[in-house]
Structure formats: C-alpha cells, structure tokens
C-alpha cells in the first residue's frame, strides 16, 4: 500500500514538473487555454469535495470566485500579493462559514436555491457598496502579475487541492461526510456532529474557490460585479463535476478538461447559442452518465474482471 502511494506520489510530482513547463512554450494561446483548464479543474474538484460526499448541490461557486476576484480589485494595489491572497482566502472562509451555518440545515432543493440566491445577494451588495460608498462602477486591476504567474499559482493550487482532498478522504472527517451522504439520520445516531462536518468541508471547498477567483483576477484589467460574479461559472462547474463524477476526488477533472475545451470551442464559434448548447449538454450528461465518467470507468474495470472499486453511489 505505502509503495503504491510512493509510486503515485512520484508520478504526480513528475507530471507537475512537466506541467510547470507549459509557460516556457512561449505560446500565448496555449497558456491561456492551460489557465482555463486549471481554473475549472480546481473549481470542479473543490465543488466535488463538498458536494460529492454530501450530495448537496451548491450553486455558490460564483459567489466565492467573485469574492476572491473582488478582493484583488480592492486590495491588489494596497497590499503585497501574498497578503492579498491570504485576505481573499480568509474572506471566503468567513462567508462560507456564515452561509454554511445558516443553510446546511436546509435540505435538497432549498439548499440549491439558497446558494443561487446567495450569489445574487453578494453581487447586489457589492454593487450597492461600490455605487454608494466607493462611488465607482468598476475597478482597474493594477497588479504586477503575468499570465505565467497566474498559471503557476493555479498549478500549485491544483496540487494542493488534490493533496488536501486525498488527506480528507482518508480522514475521519471524510468518512463522516460519506456517512452523511448515505443517511444523515444514521450519521447523527453514530455520533457524527453533522453540522460541523458539513460546514467544515463547505468552508474548505469555498476557500479554494475564493483563491481561484483571486488568482484569476489579474487576467482582467478591469473588473465590475457582473464580470466577477458571472453565474455561468456555477453552472459550468456543476456540469463538469457531474460529467466527471463528483463521488471521486479524481472524477471532476475528467469532466473539467473535455468540457473546458468544448466550451472554449463553442463560445468562440457560437457565441449566441452557447447557453442553449450548454443546457443540452447538461441534460445529456444527467441522462446518459448518472455516475459520471468516473462511474463509467469503475463499471468498465469491474466488468472487465479488474479489481472492483469501492462502491459509492453518486
């Protein structure tokens, strides 16, 4: 077991080293594409870390992404970059903690709607604050961060998220979340503080999303609420995680990569009908791959006589 982990760790490090070379290719288009790929990989993986085991569908990705981006717009010029990121992470964690404590007692569809409403609420709050207090409609982002810097930061965050997810999955907290996902009443009777477990993971996942927003912000030179809080992000991340399979740590990346490429292609070629196509893709995924690509792989490896993987219903 530990040799397997060591081997896997070595492979992951090698892959990381290779990926770190992408900015050296000197091709701006590939770099931009690689940034998109990493952005959605981290967002979808973070989404799956909470929503996979608990099965709470969150549409708050945009809210946290936006909080991160706006933190940079406001503080980017004032504080050194590491402190800006730290502040963004702290803000994301605080918002997530408050939201988690007030909503995770809700179940099913109420939670979905609340998280969607939350995004709108935060965006309106930011608009109100900017118009009435700061008296600006948008902000210029003046930070000295190159595209390559963005890429490397995202790559580091990707590595951190997978490591964190792997550690959580092996921890008591990870097991608690799986029990909660199976049956919350039973979880409570097993002595699990279900509220704490859910809020903890929601906060971890949201902090990562906030960091993505902060890291991505310098990509724009000008930010306004409708850019930072673009609710399409929530839906795209949801579709990616579901396509990949949110019940596995490595599931969402299997959806994030092909769909980022596809969305890139579609939004360039069919800018007007893009959202309609998105909706159709969503329907197709839910009907054809209810357990995502990860579920498909598991099924194939079981029927092919391979080692049956652990069952976790999505």
């Amino acid at each position, binding site marked *: 077991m530990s040799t397997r982990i060591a081997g896997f760790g070595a492979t992951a490090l090698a892959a990381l080293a290779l990926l770190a070379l992408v900015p050296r290719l000197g091709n701006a288009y590939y770099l931009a594409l690689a940034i998109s790929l990493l952005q959605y990989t981290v967002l979808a993986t973070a989404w799956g870390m909470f929503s996979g085991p608990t099965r709470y569908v969150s549409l708050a990705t945009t809210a946290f992404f936006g909080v991160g981006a706006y933190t940079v717009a406001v503080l980017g010029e004032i504080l050194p970059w590491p402190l800006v990121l730290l502040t963004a992470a702290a803000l994301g964690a605080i918002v997530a903690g408050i939201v988690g404590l007030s909503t995770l007692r809700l179940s099913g569809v109420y939670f979905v709607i609340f998280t969607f409403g939350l995004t709108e609420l935060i965006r309106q709050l930011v608009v109100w604050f900017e118009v009435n207090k700061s008296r600006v409609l948008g902000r210029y982002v003046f930070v000295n961060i190159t595209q390559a810097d963005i890429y490397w930061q995202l790559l580091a965050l990707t590595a951190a998220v997978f490591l964190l997810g792997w550690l959580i999955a092996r921890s008591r907290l990870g097991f608690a979340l799986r029990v909660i996902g199976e*049956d919350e009443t039973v979880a409570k009777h097993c002595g699990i503080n279900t509220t704490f477990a859910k809020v903890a993971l929601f906060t971890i996942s949201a902090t990562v999303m906030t960091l993505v927003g902060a890291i991505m912000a310098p990509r724009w030179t000008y930010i306004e609420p409708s850019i930072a809080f673009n609710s399409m992000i929530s839906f795209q991340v949801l579709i990616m995680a579901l396509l990949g399979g949110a019940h596995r740590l490595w599931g969402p990346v299997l959806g994030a990569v092909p769909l980022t490429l596809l969305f890139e292609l579609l939004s360039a070629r069919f800018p007007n009908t893009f959202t309609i196509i998105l909706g159709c893709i969503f329907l197709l995924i839910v009907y054809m791959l209810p357990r995502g690509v990860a579920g498909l792989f598991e099924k194939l490896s079981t029927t092919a006589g391979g080692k049956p993987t652990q069952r976790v219903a999505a």
Partner: protein
Amino acid sequence: MSQDSGTPVLTISGLRRAFGGLVAVNDLDFTVAQGEIMGLLGPNGSGKTTALNLISGVLRPDAGTIRLMGQNIAGLASYRIARLGLARTFQLVRVLDGMDCRENIKAGLAFQRPHLPASEAELRIDRLLDRVGLAGHDRRPAADLTYIDRKRLELARALAAKPRLLLLDEWLAGLNPSELAIGIDLIRSLRADGITIVLVEHVMSAVRALCDRCIVMSSGRKIAEGATADVLSDAAVVKAYLGGVAVDA
C-alpha cells in the same frame, strides 16, 4: 419500581410530544434499570416510535425529562446522545447502502469518544460481523444484502459503539420462525454483555422470551406496566390490542 441497585439507565418523566393537535406521546413515565430488557408495547400508532425518537434526540420533547445514566438528555442533539452511550435501530431498516458491511459497522464506532486505535476497531468489527452472523460478508455492499442480513448489519452498527442503552424498534418484525429464534438468542446474549435494552415489539413470543418488564401504550399514554406475564394478561391491554382477542402471536 425504582430499584436500589444504583442509578437507573433510563428515567423518563412527564414526556410529551404533539404533532399539531395529535398528542403522540402523552405524559409518559417509566424507568429502565441496569441490565434490564424492557418491552414497549402497544397497537400501531400508539406512540412507541415517537417515544424512541424523543429518547434518541430525533425529536424534541414538548415537555418532560429524559435521564440517561442520571443526566438529562431531553432536547440534546442526537449525536451527543449517541456519544453518551445510546444506540438504536429503526423500524424501517436503515443501513448505508453505498458502503460495504465493514464500513457500515465502522460508522457505528468511528465517531465515539475516545477514539479506538485502528487495530482495535478492526478487531471489534470482525467480532461483530461474527456475532450477528455476517462473518465473511465484510466486503459485501450493504445494498446486496437480504432483508434479515440488513437487520443484522443495522444491529451490528448499533452495537459497535458498545452502548449502555439500546433501543430496538421492531427489530424482530418480518423474520421467519427460524430467523426469529436466532434473533431472540442474539438479543438475549446482549443482556449478558450488560447492555440495557428497550424493545419495541409486536411479536409476543419474543416479548415473553426476552422482556423482564413491559409497559403498554395506547394513544400516547401508558395504560399498563409491570412484569411481562402480568401485563400480557391484563384485560385493558388485551382490549387495547386486538379489541378483546387474546394477546398472542
């Protein structure tokens, strides 16, 4: 009724819970002594499951106190009650279908305080699988189990925490005669381990075989209490149950 051998495991007084206008549990009092198996009987809808839900913290009581080992647990979150040594099974079996048998049992002990060392936990899981008759099924997904095996697994999960008090809600219901005999033996063996049990049951042969004392509920109220044989021959009980037909099954 109150025995002198230390604090009762469970003491309930003035317990009440209404759903809208329906008073499902009405001014309920009873005590369960250490090591006792107490039957909780009554026709369908008389409030037995609601009483268990109040004790285990699924529902909050409108009034009354529930003392577990002397400590008032009324209104406490169910995860806290679980950590104080209470475990239960459900009238409609609840196992974790997406997990295998081993993980199901592990869920029962992994969150108790203090945490067990991993090797001890694995050992306890093996013993429990053995004890409920699921040895060799440890990697089998719970979703694939038969009805009786699901019941066994649920009981093993409840036992995993080494509870002081175990609430069984019609755990023997739906078993065939040979399974029933095994089930009765299993529950009897729990008493030998010092587990105190509240047994909600309709199977009268099991009640006779297992329960030291019984209380009978009807429309949320306690209508009889005492030694099992006396209670089952009580005229009021016979009437509450099958409208006059002798209580036997």
